[in-house]
């Protein structure tokens, strides 16, 4: 009769309680520092934000009174990330189109998909080392060594696997009926892809690409010896061929300075970087959830 009721003392119930509390403890240990981390960055960095931050050049370390602003680094990050996107998006989307639309699961496409996964696992600093050997040390870009352009190229290597993968997977989700219908009314393969399949996969591809860009914007390792760093305003097109600052490298350099003013600048830059990356992530998540809901209807 008793066996119909829950018995606290039973060894299986005690064991269950024990493991349940263990997993709760794991979750707490894992999540609490993470919450603390985010709030600390947002609080500490947010308190350093001033209007001048966005307009001034950073002062060279040593002048402890006034560190200046982060304008060149902010613009530099935008430029370098744009260069990376300009290279990686066409190549990646094109490659993804081939994998999803043309390849028939043969050896070549299997090899490329494998290569995409391998390239995604290549340490980011190796991308910097590669570009350094290929472009910086050979001065192949019109005799310039460290340059924003080289930095953008290094970042594009990191973005490429993400873009190919999201394009490939996004296109695979497009129902085949759409392709048949388009080909059936006489459209060529090229028109079908550009006018039918690509537009219907646009939102999922765009989400993946934007997340890839956000990830690239925070990468530091490929930039420290390709784009290097610069304290000066970016004034014109020619500056692409010279050292260029970026928020990520600014944080790295100024975090290691012994001066308080520079450290504060690093916190402010972190705030801007983290806030923009997190908002891009949250926005694209909401967009993705919204798409899912409308699709189900």
């Amino acid at each position, binding site marked *: 009769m008793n066996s119909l009721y829950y018995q606290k003392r039973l060894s299986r119930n005690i064991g269950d309680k024990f493991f349940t509390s263990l997993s709760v403890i794991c979750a707490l240990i894992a999540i609490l520092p*993470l919450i603390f981390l985010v709030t600390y960055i947002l609080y500490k960095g947010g308190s350093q934000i001033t209007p001048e931050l966005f307009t001034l050049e950073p002062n060279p370390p040593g002048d402890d009174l006034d560190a200046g602003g982060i304008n060149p680094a902010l613009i530099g990050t935008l430029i370098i990330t744009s260069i990376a996107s300009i290279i990686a998006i066409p190549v990646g989307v094109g490659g993804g189109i081939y994998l999803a639309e043309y390849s028939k699961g043969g050896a070549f496409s299997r090899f*490329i998909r494998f290569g995409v996964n391998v390239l995604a696992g290549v*340490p980011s600093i190796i991308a910097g080392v590669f570009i350094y050997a290929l472009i910086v040390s050979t001065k192949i870009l019109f005799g310039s060594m460290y340059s924003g352009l080289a930095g953008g190229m290094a970042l594009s290597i990191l973005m490429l696997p993400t873009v190919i993968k999201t394009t490939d997977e996004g296109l695979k989700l497009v129902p085949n009926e759409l392709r048949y219908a388009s080909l059936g009314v006489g459209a060529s393969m*090229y028109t079908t892809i550009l006018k039918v399949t690509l537009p219907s996969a646009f939102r999922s591809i765009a989400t993946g690409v934007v997340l890839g860009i956000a990830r690239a914007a925070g990468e530091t390792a490929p930039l*420290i010896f390709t784009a290097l760093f610069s304290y000066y305003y970016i004034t014109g097109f020619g500056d692409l061929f010279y050292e260029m600052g970026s928020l990520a490298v600014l944080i790295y350099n100024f975090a290691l300075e012994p001066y308080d003013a520079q450290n504060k600048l690093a916190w402010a830059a972190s705030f801007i970087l983290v806030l923009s990356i997190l908002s891009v992530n949250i926005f694209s998540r909401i967009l993705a959830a919204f798409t899912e809901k409308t699709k189900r209807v």
Partner: protein
Amino acid sequence: MEEKLTLFKNRKRFGIEKNIDIIFKNTTLVLSSFVAIILLGIFLVVFFQSFESFSRYGLKFLVTSEWNPVKDEYGAFTAIYGTLLTSFLSLLITIPLGVGTAIFITEDFVPKIVREIIGSFVELLAAIPSVVLGLWAIFVMEPFFRVFFVFLHNFFGWIPLFSTEPTGRNSLLAILILVVMLLPIVTSIARDSLNQVPKKLRNAAYGIGASRWKTIFSVILPAALSGIMAGVLLALGRAMGETMAVTMIIGNSNAFSWSLLSPGYTISSMLANQFGEADGSQVSSLFYAAFVLMILSLVVNIFAQWLVKKFSLKY
């Protein structure tokens, strides 16, 4: 009748349309082979740049820890040891925490909405740039743990792992910041693979009277194991290649020490520190170290992909 005939005449595609089609297909083919070209390029460039150092030091490079640009003596043992030590130890801490958290958010201990919030929060954290984590480690984590490290040294100093006086940055801090970086990866991949285990397996286990944790340990975890293992290997690859946060907190010293409380080095932090101002045979030696790092992460990655293919869920 007249109209039908003209339609008939036009039923073939125009030459120009055909050509566009072929050009488009071949363009995408070329673009997709870029991946292979880049991968091969990275491999060849790093290999040939390291050739000078490779032919001079051979495999001795891997086991000596002299790094002296003045005497032209190079050996990367400290950095290789540091890379392996930090990545494996951080993984050792991350696996139970990450899998435990993943179990917590896939079981129904708390309402679904809370679990989903925790899940997406953890995923968001994977997006935080590692340089920001490094900054946080320098200014928050290091002062916070200093007391604890002193305690560790005072009471367990007789163990070689804790034998040095803690002075600021050290390998143990690097391991801890790596744990913070890897937790989101391991947790979200483990969560995904736990979610993929079919409901009927759980119901069957409950039906024959297994308790909740008996079900988790004997049914659900084994079924999700391949996915979790692949996630762990991906995290291992990430940990080996991770540069910024580790470089900022590990202390960057090439002097070899068994102690976790002394400054250390990893291959990637060595590259980050020295690449900018290296010349001569030091550059070649750095490329050699980069080559070693690349091989390590390639092996881990390829093994992970193989594992996923071989042991993917069969239910």
